């Protein structure tokens, strides 16, 4: 089965990870712009970073037959300095026409501050102005629930945001319903300690269904790894889920969401309507064992 890794920070990963991903069936990956583990010393450092993920990483991935895509933004952890952030935002449009850039992301909140919210809103406007997809990071741990509510309330009240073109990531059991009920796409991240384990992610798939959801490793410089997605695939298999439903979550759904950007090349094996039409709603009814 072909697999798409919808969220991974390959700048922090080794070439061996590309090789492992390729051998595990990954045919495409998407790399959101994020915090590098330290605050950049100048806005210009982001220009180099955006060039790295939109020019260098695709060539590295291509050596392993993986299509590499990316998202461009100033991440929420470095968005507290509004003036600094605006300097970065000013040159983001220079990168939006690059062949592997899918949209604006991962924007969002970290500590749910007023300044972070200001920059989040300005980057939503930037995406809308340029007709871009949006990828949203949600806060970690105890800040997550409040941050999700703040951003969902803002987006719902905006009036000009199409939820079908927005992916809200790092969902867990207490935030999944809020985001899905508002009509947005959802992402679940598999991490060793925080976020989701493979078993909990499959619990949520069974509870909330297979539509408008993706699973990712968000592999970066911390404890994480690209095999996390495949551990989740195995968890679905050992619970008896159908191969076509596993393909919906790990290949077709990323194709459907990211395919709204015409630059995204992989094509789904079947449409959302077909997936919905054959009973693939998640839950124990879809298990074969």
């Amino acid at each position, binding site marked *: 089965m072909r697999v798409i890794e919808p969220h991974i920070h390959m700048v922090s990963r080794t070439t061996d990870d590309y090789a492992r991903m390729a051998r595990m069936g990954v045919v495409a990956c998407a790399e959101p712009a994020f915090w590098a583990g330290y605050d950049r010393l100048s806005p210009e450092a982001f220009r180099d970073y955006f060039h790295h993920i939109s020019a260098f990483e695709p060539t590295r991935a291509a050596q392993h037959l993986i299509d590499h895509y990316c998202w461009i933004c100033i991440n929420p952890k470095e968005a507290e300095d509004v003036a600094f952030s605006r300097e970065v935002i000013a040159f983001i449009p220079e990168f939006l026409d690059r062949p592997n850039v899918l949209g604006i992301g991962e924007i969002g909140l970290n500590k749910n501050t007023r300044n972070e919210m200001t920059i989040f809103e300005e980057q939503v406007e930037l995406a809308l102005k340029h007709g871009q997809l949006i990828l949203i990071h949600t806060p970690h741990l105890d800040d997550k629930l409040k941050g999700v509510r703040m951003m969902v309330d803002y987006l719902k009240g905006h009036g000009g945001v199409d939820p079908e073109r927005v992916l809200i990531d790092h969902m867990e059991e207490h935030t999944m319903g809020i985001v899905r009920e508002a009509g947005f796409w959802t992402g679940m991240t598999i991490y060793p*300690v925080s976020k989701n384990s493979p*078993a909990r992610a499959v619990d949520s798939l069974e509870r909330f269904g297979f539509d408008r959801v993706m699973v990712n490793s968000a592999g970066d410089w911390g404890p994480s790894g690209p095999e996390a997605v495949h551990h989740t695939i195995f968890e679905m298999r050992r619970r008896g889920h159908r191969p076509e439903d596993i393909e919906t979550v790990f290949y077709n759904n990323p194709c459907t969401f990211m395919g709204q950007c015409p630059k995204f090349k992989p094509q789904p094996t079947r449409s959302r309507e077909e997936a919905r039409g054959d009973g693939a709603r998640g839950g124990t009814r879809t298990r074969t064992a």
Partner: protein
Amino acid sequence: MPASALLDLYYLQIRSFLVEAAAGLDRIQNAPGGAEAVRDPRFQALRAAAATATREETGRVETILNDLSVD
């Protein structure tokens, strides 16, 4: 190492274990046949162990392991 440093060191790991334990019990109870499963002595033993894990006094781990041991 002082307790505050240990809390810093292990907070996320313990948080993760508690969340996983709760998710596992939900998973079983929500599955088909969950009503019967919650009456299974193993499920009841897990719930009792979870309660012990959150009691006020220490010695929790020894109590849990004793409770989960066959006579």
